[in-house]
């Protein structure tokens, strides 16, 4: 089947079986490899993209179900105001270790801040606990979200650096 989808503001024509997950269309057809494969069943969040602004697991979203929804990936998230702020905070605190999950983290964090520009620790836990970081950079992820939001960063980072 041929599908026409809207990715990072560009209309793209892709070929694939109806049940092909969006993840593999992005990675192997469109070579947008910033969106990562981690578990294939929507449990780790490495494949998180935005579908009409909502954080969505691309590994369990079939291409046939996308329709006219606007897809934004890590390659395009910096075009938005919150995406840019989140990426700046991520760089300023050097959140990354191996970096493999961080596209998913940035996508989830951006969606959180769009919805809630002043998140509490509880809000961050709720929005971000679906994205696994195997290197456990959680201390910095929390601090970077607060920095992007212009909130006081947690003491642990301030005290250490």
């Amino acid at each position: 089947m041929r599908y026409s989808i809207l990715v990072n503001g560009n209309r793209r024509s892709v070929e694939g079986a109806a049940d092909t997950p969006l993840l593999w269309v992005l990675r192997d057809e469109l070579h947008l490899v910033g969106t990562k494969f981690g578990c294939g069943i929507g449990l780790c969040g490495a494949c998180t993209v935005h579908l009409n602004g909502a954080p969505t697991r691309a590994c369990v979203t079939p291409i046939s179900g996308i329709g006219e929804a606007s897809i934004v990936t890590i390659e395009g998230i910096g075009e938005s105001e919150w995406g840019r702020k989140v990426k700046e905070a991520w760089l300023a605190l050097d959140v990354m270790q191996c970096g493999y999950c961080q596209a998913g983290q940035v996508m989830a964090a951006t969606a959180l801040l769009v919805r809630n520009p002043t998140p509490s620790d509880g809000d961050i836990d709720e929005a971000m606990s679906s994205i696994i970081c195997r290197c456990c950079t959680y201390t910095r992820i929390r601090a970077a979200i607060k920095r992007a939001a212009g909130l006081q960063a947690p003491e642990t980072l301030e005290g250490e650096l």
Partner: protein
Amino acid sequence: MSARHVAGTPSGTDAPGLRISRRTFLATGLAAGGGLLLTLKFAGRTFADDAGVAAYISIAPDGIVTIVAKNPEIGQGMKTTLPMLIADELGVEWKNVRVRQAMLDPIYPGQFAGGSLGTPLNWIPMQRVGAAGRQLLLAAAAHTWGVPVSQCEASAGVVRHRSSGRTLTYGALAGKAAALPAPDLDSVTLKRPSEYTIIGKFTGGVDSPAILEGAAVFGIDVTVAEMSYAVYEKSPVFGGRVVRANIEEIKKLPGIRDAFIVRGIDAEAPIKMGLVDGVAIVADKWWDADQARRKLRIDWSHQAVSDQSTQAFERRAAQLAQSAPRSIIRRDGDVDAALARAPKVLEASYAYPFLAHATLEPQNCTAHVTDGGAEIWAPTQDPRAGATLVARTLGIDAGKIRVHMMRAGGAFGRRAYNDYMVEAAMISKRAGRAIKLLWDRTQDIQHDAYRPGGFHYFKAGLDAAGRPVAFRDHFVTFGHDGRLAATAELPRDHFPAGYIPNLEYGQTLIELNAPTGWMRNPGGNALAFAFESFLDELAHAGGRDPLALRLDLYGPPRVFAPPPARRGMKIPPFDTGRVRGVLELVAQKSDWHRRTALPAGTGMGLAFYYSHFGYVAEVVKAGLSREGTPKVHKIWAAVDIGRQIINPAGAYNQAQGAILDGLGQALHMAVTFENGRVVQRNFDTYHLLRINESPPVEVHFLRSDNDPTGLGEPPLPPVLPALCNALFAATGKRIRTLPIDARMLRAGET
């Protein structure tokens, strides 16, 4: 208690260590456009890579400096750290540095990531490379001006003649420096720490911007010309052989190019992470290949091992504990006599599970095997071992295998094994084309080199003052054909050996048919929990402060003679003064001495562990949540890895990450076996720590006057016992089995 963790390095390789071999010399060369190459020369060959970049440093006429990171990047920041060491000594500004990842090349020493050795092995050699470059540029400037070198100084990419104030940029000097002979690395003078401009400064990872653009290329992201995708199905029971499979049916499925049976060639392969039997499917799209894999019907021959199970291991261990150990690891004094005399005797049994690494990037490799050799793109910790394995298995000359070291989405020891590399190479050879092999999560969890589980049966006697005078551990561990399984050992010098006069470590093996291997802090990630928890039991039983008991056991500051140098690296001596230093620091930072003032239901626990030359003491403050599950309020760590933190950006992140990794192991992680196979299939059954369970982690570095050592592993072990000791302080319930079963904390026996 010597540096036993040097053993945790890829010993299966012939990594030559860090000293550049006697037949390899530093050399200069002229870069295209008139720049300087500071490179290596071996057997008459002056090294430059495909793009003409030198082994270590290339300086372009415009002053842009390209520095090569020779080691693989697996998330510990070596691709940033090693170039920082070169750049600081070279005397350039970090903003003018570009970093390029090396390929595997025999000209480089020690191209691996493991054993927390990146820093101790490279700290001096990389600085010397940079200093040699600075020396060349100083000489070129002095020659240009006709002044003595001693009147010149270099910094920020500029050489300055002190008295006249004349300056020349490195870019302008590069062509001239290229014609000078390279200095002997041993002769160069290094900066004083007060002169550092990059070392010690918060420096973001060199790939971080690309990662945030989705542009960094991990192994899984590699695309090469004419590439197909491959999947590989192996026996769920380790070592199972393919009897037959529905190959012809699979070949007819949409998008499938080829399907075939691959034969493992080595009977030891299932244990040693080599090529094992399986069915390969090659397709134009990975999704098609993986869908076809789900339609595979394979008959496996499993031999006699398909009854292997965790429950049987547990029954067997309990049985074996009734008898004397099969072998004695160490015996000091007379434990039986001392136990008979001791006013107080304690017994306890501890157990911990097998663990899978679960790197978030599943195992993958891209390979193109041709008549002339092989080109491989792999996220690997030990590319040399991988090339050796491919050469041996496929019968290719190792010299004709080119390995690109791709950024790895986590490794933790998993990618010290190259099973996925040899699979990719064999599939490429059989398919006659370039392929990218990618495992799914279930395959990744079910085909690992597991952290081995283990059982400890402790017995100890205290004297009237609460000091341990007798200590026994019957360690029931795992082996294969009577030989200890990889990383399943209890080292004979493991603490408290040497600190208690009557001590016995004995060992008995349970037969295991599964691969085991290095996992972040091999040995320590398991042994610390058992030993440091039991030590806490002894402290409480003897009425001693757990901190005071440890200080008492380690005694006054003493420095033990180190073992001989290994891999060209001087082994640092073990220093009880450094133990004391971190114990006292963590106690001070965590307010340990006021812990009795904590509210009811909240407690503090402490632990110390020495590993990979690092000294780490940690305190956990914890209690129970409203739901009755462990709730960690905060963690403090005091870390002594020497006088210099090379990159604070990476260092605090590593320490916090390793500690939270250990917390995840304590709370969740376990691999179990049933009917010979691994039960866990994905993150619904193999749980990893998430942000809502992550407490603040406060890390303090104690800058003792010692050469810097590694940090990826040392902070991990102490958190497991520190947490369990805190939960005991909070609830009175002692955790002796991991992962923590919250029901044990709410009720039942203590």
